[in-house]
């Protein structure tokens, strides 16, 4: 067993951890809530540990021969049956620099989400079973190097959301849950069609993504074909990445979702969409990507500006964050659309940065909503005096959102802006305009909620619980580390991005 293969088992263990947690929980009686919580905390901690290991152990380029895909592990699943040829479907796991960062993000957000949901008391067991199913889907998508399993896990990550939001949510939860599920699955329909087409066109009899990537680069997928089917993948994945104009599920879904689901959803799940665009768009159909990227740039820019403007006028905490997510995912799409190394690196960094910071925001919103049972900005005022720690945490998240130097948002957005200015200067100007708007809506929120006279209704609010402090501290740690010491992040992502097909350095 080589070292790389040995590390492959770490990847497998990371994927299996949520599955094992899920299976264990199935056999715990529903009224043993303490046991349910401990199993979940333990599973979350294990996942965080393994994810961190994967990120740290990922070898950056240091002369010598560098292969971006590391820690591979593959098992034959089905081969030489019907239309499947050699290596038809494999459970092929591995990470490259992009997915290594995403895996780290998943570990952090999932653990933070677990800590935040510990106080949940209604059908705790069912909640965590679905929660771990979702996390398993997310990990699986990031690890999969096989198109079949990629789609398998991608769908798996979407499905539990209906129940998670419908049962444990708030504020028009049935509507939000149904809208979100139907829109996301409608997106998968496009991906599904794209998969059929790619498999048929490549004619390799295999779902192996690495082989299909090669086919995409070397002309196994004709130029016309790539141009035709690129929109299938990009719109299909774009729905999940809140690509304007397919973003409308996002604010409603966030408004309805329970805290931990909002955290994981905005924190990780939306990144699956952008990740899908990289994997299935840029890597699989490079010529299609080259042709369509200006279009994606337009949509991304509209999304970035539109989300920021919409956030300015909202009164609900979650809607502000929902629209701000649309805006930030707009940056991600802009970064991807530059097709140059610095822009795409920025997009991936932004995926991480937005993930941790938005998870922190939703954690804080959940912390106050559980006590106040309202999320209307106008109801609040002077909370700074009642919940000082809450205000500090929220402020850090908000400032990262705005892109304050020293916090993660700056690192990411800086890369994106540089990349955009190189290719589409007008879009770059608009992006900076959107960033300015972000400062406006965040400061508006701060001034209404944190300062001013304290409404006597809120005098008996408690500050955030120890679990929420731990969860928040973890996220803040990630925000600051990436803001201050970005080299490990940029190295890992950059090495992989430079090797993407048709990407200018």
């Amino acid at each position, binding site marked *: 067993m080589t070292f790389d293969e040995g590390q492959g088992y770490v990847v497998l263990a990371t994927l299996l951890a949520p599955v094992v947690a899920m299976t264990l929980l199935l056999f715990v009686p529903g009224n043993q809530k303490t046991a349910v919580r401990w199993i979940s905390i333990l599973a979350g901690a294990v996942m965080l540990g393994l994810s961190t290991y994967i990120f740290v152990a990922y070898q950056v380029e240091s002369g010598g021969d560098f292969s971006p895909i590391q820690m591979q592990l593959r098992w034959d699943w*089905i081969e030489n049956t*019907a239309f499947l040829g050699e290596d038809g479907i494999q459970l092929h796991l591995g990470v490259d620099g992009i997915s290594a960062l995403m895996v780290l993000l998943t570990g952090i957000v999932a653990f933070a989400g677990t800590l935040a949901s510990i106080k949940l008391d209604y059908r705790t067991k069912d909640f965590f079973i679905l929660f771990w199913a979702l996390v398993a889907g997310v990990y699986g998508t990031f690890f999969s190097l096989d198109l079949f399993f990629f*789609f398998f896990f991608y769908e*798996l990550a979407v*499905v539990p959301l209906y129940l998670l939001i419908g*049962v444990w949510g708030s504020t028009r939860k049935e509507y939000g849950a149904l809208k979100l599920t139907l829109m996301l699955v409608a997106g*998968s329909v496009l991906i599904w069609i794209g998969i*059929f087409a790619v498999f048929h066109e490549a004619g390799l009899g295999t779902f192996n993504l690495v082989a299909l990537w090669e086919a995409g680069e070397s002309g196994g997928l004709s130029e016309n074909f790539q141009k035709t089917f690129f929109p299938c993948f990009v719109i299909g994945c774009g729905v999940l990445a809140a690509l304007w104009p397919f973003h409308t599920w996002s604010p409603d879904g966030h408004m309805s979702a329970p805290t931990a689901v909002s955290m994981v959803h905005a924190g990780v799940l939306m990144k699956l969409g952008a990740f899908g665009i990289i994997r299935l768009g840029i890597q699989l159909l490079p010529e299609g990507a080259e042709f369509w990227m200006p279009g994606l740039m337009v949509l991304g820019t509209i999304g970035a500006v539109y989300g920021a403007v919409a956030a300015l006028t909202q009164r609900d905490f979650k809607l502000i964050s929902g629209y701000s997510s649309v805006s930030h995912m707009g940056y991600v799409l802009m970064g991807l659309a530059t097709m140059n190394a610095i822009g795409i690196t920025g997009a991936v960094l932004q995926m991480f940065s937005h993930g941790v910071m938005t998870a922190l925001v939703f954690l804080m919103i959940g912390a106050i909503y559980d006590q106040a049972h309202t999320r209307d900005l106008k109801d609040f005022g002077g909370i700074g005096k009642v919940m000082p720690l809450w205000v500090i945490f929220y402020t850090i998240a908000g400032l990262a959102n705005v892109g304050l130097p020293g916090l993660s948002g700056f690192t990411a957005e800086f890369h994106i802006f540089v990349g955009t200015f190189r290719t589409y200067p007008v879009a770059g100007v608009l992006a900076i305009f959107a960033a300015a708007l972000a400062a406006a809506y965040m400061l508006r929120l701060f001034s209404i909620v944190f300062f001013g006279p304290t409404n006597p209704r809120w005098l008996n609010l408690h500050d955030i619980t120890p679990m929420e402090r731990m969860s928040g501290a973890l996220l803040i740690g990630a925000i600051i580390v990436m803001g201050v010491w970005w080299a490990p992040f940029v190295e890992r992502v950059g090495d992989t991005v430079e090797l993407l097909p048709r990407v200018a350095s």
Partner: protein
Amino acid sequence: MRDYTIFIPEFIAAGAALGLIGLELFVPRVRKDVLAYLTFLAAIAWAVAALFYIDKDPNTFENVVRVDHFTTFFRLLAAGCVAATALMSANYLRGRTATASEYYGLLLIAGCGAVYLAAARELLTAYISLEILSFSLYILVGFIKRDIRSSEASLKYILLGAFSSATLLYGISFVYGVTGSTYYDQIAAALAERSSDTDAGIIVGFMLILAGVGFKVSAAPFHMWAPDAYEGAPLPITGFLSTLSKAGGFALFLRLFTNAFQTDAVEWRWAVAVLAAVTMVVGNLIAIQQRNMKRLVAYSSISQVGYMLVVIAALGYGDDEVGQAASSALLLHMVGYIIATLALFTALTAYYNRTGDDSIGGLRGLAETQPFLALVITVSLFSYAGLPFFAGFATKLFMFQAAYTDELVWLVVLAVINSFVSLYYYLMVMRQMYLFDPRPGLARFRVSPVLWLLGAGLLAAVVFIGVYPGPAFEGAERAAEQLFERPFETEAAAAAGAPQQHVSVP
């Protein structure tokens, strides 16, 4: 030499059917659920007997019936369906009828009918098998005599069924008229050589056969009987109707369209493609409006038939390689669909035994009162919708992938979109079960151990096929391979010695 040994598995099943009827005749007070368990054992014996044919070479009886992997595949499927339906019926039937042996006997005989639909290599044999299956089902649907809906369903089913049989027979006579034979091999050979002035006749023949079998599998626009029959029939029989009865129809489709009619594919393939498109759209759109669970399943199974018909269309458009891959995928999908349906009906029966309610609204709060049943229903519906972890995801993906040929892109795209639409009404069921509190007065209840075990077993099977479809897929491929053996050069010569009537091509 006539080889009767190839019939042994059905001798067991039919013998057991007669034995059961005799048992109740002489011991009228026998507990009715004991009969169900005996049927279960008989079906298991049937399946075990069928397993002995796995390693044997294909064998035919007078070139009329052929026992190969394809037949073995359907033997196992039929025996499994009968076994599961018998267990489901045990408690359901106990309080509702005074005599039950005919019910279980007919169940076994219907299974035999389905098997010979798959095994037949001659049109009249296939027709008779189809009638054995249908007649058994007519009686089974109307078995609860005191329930007026059951009788109504049966009557409607008989009338429309008789009409469709006549259509089928009329179609067969056209094909016979053009080709001069009812043997599949000879039909294939004759179709390859027929002159173009027989076009009209053969097209009418194909269309009538398509309509006749379309009735049996409830493809739109021949689906009108299905919702009423499903709603009125005893619950386990509704499950049986939507599994084995459809499987039998598709077995016939596969044999006919891979073998007998493939040489003339241009004449029928467009009709199958249109039929598939209409069926899936009609089934899905009407399913959205349903309030009754049985009717919902009826319409959803109509749309499932639409997806499966995509493969039959692909048989016409693709070459042998495509056809073989597509039929393997269809068989795999059928296994997943059947297991999920049986699981669904196990849960519905358990719930109905308790509450006597089969409306969708009646499932309100099931996640509180009986989480296991809610889980089983969820898993089966999600499997229908093709969500990952459950059989439907892999099997549907394979099926559509295999059927994806250049001419059928539109149909596959339509199927995928339909499969998305179906998610909506499945979610509506989920919503009742998980998002609402139970009706007041309905406390948590227990499921009988037999149904619990059956449900759990089927659930495990749905997940197994969903996660690791390999073994089932390989089995399906072995079964489908032999559909494409073209024996009409070799075997037709041997068959010439067998008794045949009128081999003159007009």
